[in-house]
């Protein structure tokens, strides 16, 4: 099956670990908005993929899981290997699934799959097919039960908002003093970013991004609230657009009197988790365009000033953490993650590289609490919040590989920066799951640079409340993940000071540009930074939505 797909000329990548390649497909989808397929062998390969299928489900990625299966003719005989029913295993972590058992219905179920992947709210689709299906051959389309073109088995038609709903929304937004649009991933998937910008600027509505991918509004826009955590409590009207996975009351920092509008492509989810004052069934882009057309020009000077003040406060706090991080780094002879974040951000956004160029994958756990505060998105699809919602620890190199493939191919909104290196961040716990894909990135000459925050422990060591349990969270000290990458044909760097890190970033970037080389930068840190001995300790508490978000 994978041979057949590859033979059509569809770009294909073969890797080392099914789960991580599944994450790579998810990562590709997240930064392009396009469908990606992933495949694993019958039993072990498929079950290995479960973590990343679940993660893709929470991220609502249009991921097509194609998993072959053993012959139906051998079912219940326990005579062979790798037999299992796959579909029950993906129950609750897919949008649609089907075990195809009748060979001449294969095209019909492919149509089912793509209708689900390309319509409404995306999500994983899981098709499995016993070897009787794989072995079937057809002389022509007349032997198939259903066979008609995609123009007939699905539609690109989308729901448009009712005029009365737009009128009501315009009234509510106009009356609000401090309105804010929560622009979820639906804005990205439906390519609604131009309409979003037009609406926001015309009526001076603040925008905060949510979801697994960021950049469809941009962190540096004067109306962006991505860094303005302190302003969230002032909002008097929120407009959810493209928020596929709704937060519960209390998960977002808005005040208890905030009014809420939600735009969503299907009615069934409106009102879920968050009480609404107005629900609008509509395609995200269509609704944003209608609102941008209908709203009058308006200036909200006081609100814009408050947003700017909140951003300044957030950045001042970042600077404070950085200063502490520098001090702690000097004290320990290792690198604090606040320093890693600042230096990586300086390299990518404040140096010679155009700030819009680099697609970034944010992984990791405790280190991410610091680096997430520094990393920015300036254009659609620039930032993949890899552990979004499900929070798997580990597939970060897979997401980096997926983003790298997207850049290599110039897919979707990555086209403008085709061939540029991609950057990522992960932890020493996470990289252990996915480090083998440095072989894959090297094989395919994907210029990817992964920073590994190496603090010699699981992040959950903070839960080790007795000395006796401590050992379960520890790794050997100062492991050389960089040397594993080298053994896999990639470049490796090992750094113990901030100055070494900056120099390593430059060498990695130069090698990525010149030789299409992948690099693992092993940044030696300390688990002591997780303790109250080095405040603020494990990680600063996050506020959602905005740059520190990972749940919604």
């Amino acid at each position, binding site marked *: 099956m994978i041979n057949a797909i590859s033979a059509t000329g569809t770009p294909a990548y073969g890797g080392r670990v099914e789960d991580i390649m599944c994450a790579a497909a998810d990562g590709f989808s997240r930064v392009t908005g396009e469908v990606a397929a992933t495949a694993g062998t019958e039993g072990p390969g498929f079950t290995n993929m479960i973590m990343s299928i679940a993660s893709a489900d929470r991220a609502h990625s249009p991921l097509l899981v194609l998993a072959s299966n053993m012959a139906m003719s051998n079912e219940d005989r326990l005579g062979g290997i790798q037999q299992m029913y796959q579909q029950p295993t993906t129950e609750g972590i897919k949008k649609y699934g089907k075990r195809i058992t009748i060979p001449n219905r294969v095209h019909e179920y492919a149509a089912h799959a793509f209708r689900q992947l390309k319509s409404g709210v995306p999500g994983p689709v899981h098709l499995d097919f016993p070897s009787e299906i794989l072995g079937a051959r057809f002389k022509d389309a007349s032997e198939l039960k259903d066979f008609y073109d995609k123009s007939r088995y699905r539609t690109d038609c989308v729901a448009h908002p009712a005029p009365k709903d737009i009128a009501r929304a315009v009234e509510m937004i106009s009356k609000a003093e401090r309105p804010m649009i929560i622009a979820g991933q639906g804005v990205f998937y439906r390519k609604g970013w131009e309409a979003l910008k037009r609406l926001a600027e015309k009526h001076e509505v603040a925008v905060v991004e949510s979801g697994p991918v960021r950049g469809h509004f941009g962190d540096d826009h004067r109306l962006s609230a991505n860094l303005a955590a302190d302003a969230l*409590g002032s909002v008097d009207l929120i407009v959810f657009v493209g928020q596929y996975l709704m937060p519960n009351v209390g998960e977002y920092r808005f005040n208890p009197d905030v009014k809420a509008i939600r735009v969503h492509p299907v009615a069934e989810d409106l009102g879920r988790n968050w009480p609404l004052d107005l629900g609008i069934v509509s395609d995200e882009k269509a609704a944003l365009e209608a609102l941008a057309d209908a709203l009058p020009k308006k200036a909200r000077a006081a609100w814009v000033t408050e947003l700017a003040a909140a951003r300044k406060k957030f950045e001042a706090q970042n600077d404070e953490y950085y200063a502490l991080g520098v001090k702690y780094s000097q004290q320990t002879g290792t690198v604090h993650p606040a320093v890693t974040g600042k230096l990586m951000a300086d390299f990518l956004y404040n140096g010679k590289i155009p700030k819009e160029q680099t697609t970034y994958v944010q992984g990791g756990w405790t280190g991410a609490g610091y680096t997430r505060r520094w990393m920015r998105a300036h254009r659609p699809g620039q930032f993949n919040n890899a552990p979004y919602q499900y929070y798997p620890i580990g597939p970060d190199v897979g997401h980096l590989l997926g983003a790298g493939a997207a850049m290599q191919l110039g897919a979707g909104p990555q086209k403008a920066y085709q061939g540029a290196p991609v950057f990522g961040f992960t932890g020493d716990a996470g990289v252990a799951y996915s480090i083998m894909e440095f072989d894959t990135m090297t094989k395919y000459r994907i210029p990817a640079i992964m920073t590994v925050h190496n603090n010699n422990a699981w992040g959950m060591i903070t839960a080790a409340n007795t000395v006796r349990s401590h050992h379960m969270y520890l790794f050997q000290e100062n492991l050389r993940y960089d040397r594993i990458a080298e053994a896999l044909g990639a470049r490796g760097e090992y750094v113990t000071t901030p100055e070494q890190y900056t120099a390593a970033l430059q060498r990695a970037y130069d090698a990525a540009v010149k030789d299409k080389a992948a690099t693992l930068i092993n940044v030696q840190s300390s688990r002591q930074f997780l303790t109250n001995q080095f405040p*603020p*300790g494990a990680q600063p508490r996050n506020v959602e939505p905005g740059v520190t978000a990972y749940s919604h």
Partner: protein
Amino acid sequence: MSVSIVTAGLEHYATRGMFRSFSAVASRGRLAAFEFVWIRDVRFRVTYDPVRRALTFVDLLPEVPARSAMDRAFRAFVHSRTLPSVPAHRRLDPRRVTADVRNRQGAVSLVFTLSPRHLEHGVTRSVHLVHEVIMDFLNDSLYVDYLIAHFNLNPEMA
């Protein structure tokens, strides 16, 4: 009269879907009392004394030793909400409502005294300030263990 205004002010949040399992409960003497479930499924108890116009979030913060660092920080936080650095629409205006912190044997209650002419406003500001206590004051790495112990924070999310 003021009891009905305060009751309506709190019921407003139940109607909006913010408070769950909202109910008026039996209380002693002149006090009106209410219970509801709010953020992270935590149960809150609120009383209202119409004579003193005192709206009290009873035992809002349990297990905070008097004169401890957390006690002091909490008092400073509540006071900070009256300062000009807070945007006017979020500031606590002492002419309309005041907030006092009471620590009895480690159980901290927040007592709001409402101005008779601004009862509705007073209820709203009280609810907002309690919301800020949970979302802002307690959202500090210093209080992660406290949130796990008393405010249903999932340790996996800490």
